[in-house]
Every structure is written in structure tokens, then in C-alpha cells.
């Protein structure tokens, strides 16, 4: 495809750099491109938000980075470089050595992310056992340290407890402890707070920020919540129907959103001032098996012209470090 968007910084080296990633799934009605040419990067100590509706391919992108796509899918093409190393070319065992060591992940739902049949002590310690060979007393010490870090009260006593003995908020913090246990370089947070209530959500995000300051971990937030992006991320990539349609610094994208989809997403955010009705975006994202030939947002776009239905707009700079795929960038 000629219109494949390129990473804006393809030639410089970043900590994690995804370039033109394609992930395909086999379905009964033919291949489905859940991720169709996605590029982004993230640097040490930085936070990137990947935003989009459910089904836009953001979680598949995350699993693609980890090479944990379900057996019906595969990475069709593209590159994932971590610290200069091409992950798509590694053997399975080499990849296993990276998972949980250099890249880790916090799962979306704390109620299902922990294994109900193992103690939380075991689960928090497992990655350190595998990757760092820590055992026995020193492992227990590290586990307790992590549990205290994520504010689990009476950690000494509770390491032997099972997940169902903890509240949702505590479980999410435990999942966080697992994510940071091996001080990874990149931590992918898949909707890290959807299951938490608001005050706990704020505490949790604060905790992630503290960990980032201490360890320099790069955070990748996979979310549909622009609020989290505004609060946590220096940069943002907006995904729609398997592609990044806009990316840039959070400040710039929030101030001058270029893609109508981004604008619509921002209008869905509640604001303090005024009592205007919250907007929603009409229509559904396209079926990945039958993508429209032109801009994929065109069928739902209030600004769409003839041109938008015919060709896919190039991922072009809007301002410095701010790119978007739109023929008619800006508001309406």
C-alpha cells in the first residue's frame, strides 16, 4: 500500500519503536486486518497514550509487540524494535526472555488478571524467579518490598493470601506490582483503571507516575479515556480502524486536534464549565474485513467530501511533531 504512514522519527533510535505493524486474523470470511500499518515510538521515562474505541486495534497492537497474538492471527509485516533489537525476528525462547523482563504489561481487569489458584506472593515473585533467578528469602524480601510499594497493608501476612481475598483496587495494585517487578524498560498499561472507582483510579495513576520517576520505565497507556491521556501522557497516538490517524504531543493534540475523529473523541469528554450535553460519535467503526477504500472515518465524518471516500489521506505533518491523516484537518 502506497499510503502507509511512516513513523515520524523512523531513522532516529527510540527505546521502543513500532514501524508499519500489520496484524492479520484468519476468519471464516477471509483475513481481517486488525492492525493495518501502525507506527509509533516511546522513549525512556516517557508516557505514550494510544487512544481509540474498542476494536480499533490498540490492544492487538499491544499483544503484537509482545508477540502474544492468538493462534488464529499473526504479525503479517512490520517491525518492533526494543532497545535496538528487532523483536519480530527473535525465536520463541528469546522472546520469552524479553517478556516480563524488558517489556511487561498490566492487564485491564484486576478481577481476572490474577490466577485464583496461586498466592499473590507467588504471582508477584514469579517473573523475578524466571528472569533473575531470585529464590527463597531474597525473593520473599523483594515481593514484600513491591507489595509495600503498591500500598498493600500487612504485606508480610498477606503474601500467602489468594487473589479472591483482596479488593478490586488492591488487586489492581498487585497487578501493577507484577508489572514493575523486574523493572522493565517498557510497561504497557491496558485500560489500567477502567475497573477502579475514581479516587482509587487517581491514586493508582499517581503510583504509576512515581514508579516511572524512580525507574525511568516507559509507559504505554492503551485506553479509550482521553482524561487519562491528558493526565499521564506526554504524547498521544489516536487509532481508528487499525491505523494511527493522529499523533503528537498531548498538549498540541488537545489544543489543536487535526483529525475529525480526535475532535469527536475530545468532544465526548465531560467538562466542568458549562452544562452542554455530552456528544457521542454516530455510527460504527468499519468491519476490518471490508475496509472502505478511502479514509476509514469518512462514513462517520461530518466533514467528509468526495475525495475522502476515494483515497486514504497521507499521514502528514500538521505542525512540528504533530501528524494527522486528514485531507481537511481542523475543526468544523
Amino acid at each position, binding site marked *: 500500500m502506497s499510503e502507509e504512514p511512516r513513523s515520524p522519527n523512523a531513522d532516529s533510535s527510540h527505546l521502543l519503536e513500532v514501524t508499519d505493524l500489520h496484524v492479520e486474523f484468519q476468519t471464516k470470511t477471509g483475513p481481517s486486518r486488525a492492525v493495518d500499518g501502525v507506527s509509533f515510538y516511546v522513549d525512556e521515562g516517557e508516557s505514550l497514550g494510544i487512544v481509540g474505541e474498542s476494536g480499533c486495534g490498540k490492544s492487538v497492537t499491544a499483544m503484537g509487540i509482545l508477540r502474544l497474538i492468538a493462534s488464529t492471527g499473526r504479525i503479517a509485516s512490520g517491525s518492533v524494535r526494543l532497545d535496538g533489537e528487532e523483536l519480530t525476528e527473535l525465536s520463541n525462547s528469546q522472546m520469552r526472555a524479553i517478556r*516480563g523482563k524488558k517489556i511487561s504489561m498490566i492487564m485491564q481487569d484486576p478481577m481476572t488478571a490474577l*490466577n485464583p489458584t496461586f498466592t499473590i506472593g507467588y504471582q508477584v515473585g*514469579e*517473573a523475578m524467579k524466571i528472569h533473575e533467578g531470585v529464590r527463597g528469602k531474597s525473593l520473599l524480601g523483594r515481593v514484600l518490598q513491591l507489595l509495600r510499594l503498591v500500598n498493600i497493608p500487612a504485606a508480610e501476612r498477606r503474601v500467602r493470601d*489468594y487473589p*479472591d*481475598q483482596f479488593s478490586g483496587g488492591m488487586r489492581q495494585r498487585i497487578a501493577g506490582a507484577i508489572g514493575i517487578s523486574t523493572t522493565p524498560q517498557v510497561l504497557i498499561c491496558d485500560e489500567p483503571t477502567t475497573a477502579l472507582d475514581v479516587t482509587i483510579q487517581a491514586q493508582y495513576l499517581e503510583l504509576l507516575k512515581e514508579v516511572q520517576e524512580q525507574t525511568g520505565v516507559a509507559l504505554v497507556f492503551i485506553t479509550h479515556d482521553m482524561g487519562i491521556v491528558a493526565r499521564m501522557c506526554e504524547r498521544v497516538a489516536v487509532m481508528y480502524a487499525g491505523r494511527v490517524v493522529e499523533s503528537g504531543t498531548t498538549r498540541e493534540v488537545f489544543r489543536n486536534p487535526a483529525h475529525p475523529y480526535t475532535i469527536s473523541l475530545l468532544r465526548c469528554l465531560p467538562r466542568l464549565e458549562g452544562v452542554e450535553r455530552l456528544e457521542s460519535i454516530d455510527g460504527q467503526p468499519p468491519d476490518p474485513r471490508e475496509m472502505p477504500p478511502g479514509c476509514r472515518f469518512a462514513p462517520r465524518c461530518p466533514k467528509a467530501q468526495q475525495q475522502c471516500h476515494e483515497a486514504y489521506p497521507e499521514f502528514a505533518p500538521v505542525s512540528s511533531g504533530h501528524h494527522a491523516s486528514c485531507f481537511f484537518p481542523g475543526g468544523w
Partner: protein
Amino acid sequence: MGRFIAQRILHAIFAMFVITVVIFGTVRLSGDPARMMISDEAPHEQYLEMRRLLLLDRPIPEQYWRWVSQAAQGDFGTSLRYQIPVSELVSTRLPATLELAVAAYGFTLLLGLTIGVYSAAFRGSALDAGARLLAVMGQAAPNFWLGIMLVLVFAVWLNWLPSGGRGEWRHLVLPAITLGWGPVAGLMRITRSSMIEVLSSDYVRLARVKGVGETSVLWKHAFKNGALPILTFASLVFLGLIRGSVIVETVFFWPGIGLLVLEGVNNRDFQLVQAIILLFSSWVIFGNLLVDILYVYLNPKIKH
């Protein structure tokens, strides 16, 4: 947890009581043992004498009480045919049945769990399809038929293995496969469906994210969670194997309890039949009790 187990024990005791009544009643409804013991031309006095000897002339509740209280002390009376204590007879035959059941169970577990786990891990592959075919075949074939076919092929045609009797390990192979084959299919299917569910869970995904190796993901993280239904089924399978031994022991002339009870039925050896059926029943009831307790132990959700 203690209360749960106490409750289960009470259930088991009650079930045992009902079972003893049913066994006692059924055996008495199935014919008159005293008649079997004497010739048809024998005078009526001799028949009455025999009834008195067997205590069959006493009131039914007294007979029941005598039987139950003696059985509780391990005294099951004397076999009418062999003229030795039933307990002695059973205990000489029991090792053979246990040997067969354990061998068959090993076969069932090895095949059922392995195929089940890997057909879940490689869902939709040729292995999975082959396993499903095996399952259908296994469940469709009755074990007496399977036994006869195995004898035909491996004993009669190929002459690799003996067709019956008990002795060295070669005698054990065909009856163990025959007895263990049926439940393989069921165990495999339970294992497969239970594992498929668990394998798509977030915590299995998280285990992979942590860099846990695939074998460990399957047999540790996933299997321990899928194990509950598998364990329940597998335990019931073992209980069922003892029952299945009646047919398989007959086909292979395996000198165990199964063969003994069949002989007992043919000979109206009611003391013997009562004892063995009671043994089978208590086996199932206390086996289930153990499964329940194990279930609690393995499921932290019930435990706490």
C-alpha cells in the same frame, strides 16, 4: 470448611444406610437361597432345616440387623458355595481387581489428560480433530466388544499377548486397555473444554506476558485452574472402573472381585453377593466423599 466436611460425612452415612437396605432387600427378592442349596427332590423338612441354618426363618428386621452389625465388624458371613468366610474370599480376590483398576486408571489418565490438554492448546489442528474422532469411537464402543476385538487382534491373530488370566505384566495389558478405554474419551473431552476456557483467561495471558514457558503455562497456570472439573470427573472415573471390572474381568477371565460377584450371582451365593455389592457401594460413597474433600482443598474459593 470443617462444617462442610462434617455435612458431607453425614450425607455419606445416610447414603450407606439407604444402600444397605436396598442391597438387603434386593437380594431377598431375587430368589430363595435355601432352595438353591438343596436338591429339588429333598423333603420339605430338609428345606426348612436349611432355612433355619441360614437364619432365613427369622424376622426380616432381625436378619437385616444381624447382617449390618456383623458387616460393620468385618464379618460378612460364609460363602454358601466356597464354604469359607466371605471376607477371606474377597480379600484374596481384591488385589487382582485393584491391580487391574490401577493399571487401567493409569492408562486413562495418561491418555485422557495429555490428549485433552494438547488438543486444547492446539485447538483446530489435526491433533485436535484426531482426538475428537478417538473420543467418539471410545464412547461408542462398549467395553466387552472392545475386549473381544483386542483379544482377536492381539491374542489370536498376532499372538503378542495372552487372551486371559492373570500372571505377569503381559496379562495386564489388554484388560487394562479395555477397562481404561471408555473413560479416556470422556476425560479427554472434559479436560479439553475446561482447558480451552482457562487458556483464554487473562491470568494465563499474564503468565505468558511474564515470560513463563509454554509447558509451565499449560500444566501449571492453566491446568491447576481447569483441574476442578477434571479432578471430579477423573475421580468418578476411578470409582466407575471398579464397577466396569465386572464385565472386563469376565471377558478376560481375570480372577478379581468382578468375576467373583458374577459367579456369586449365578450360584445364588447371597452372602457373597451382598458383601461385594456393599463393598462396591461403599467404595463409591466414600470415594465421592473424598472427592468432595479434595475439591474443597483445591478450590480456594470454597476454602475461605
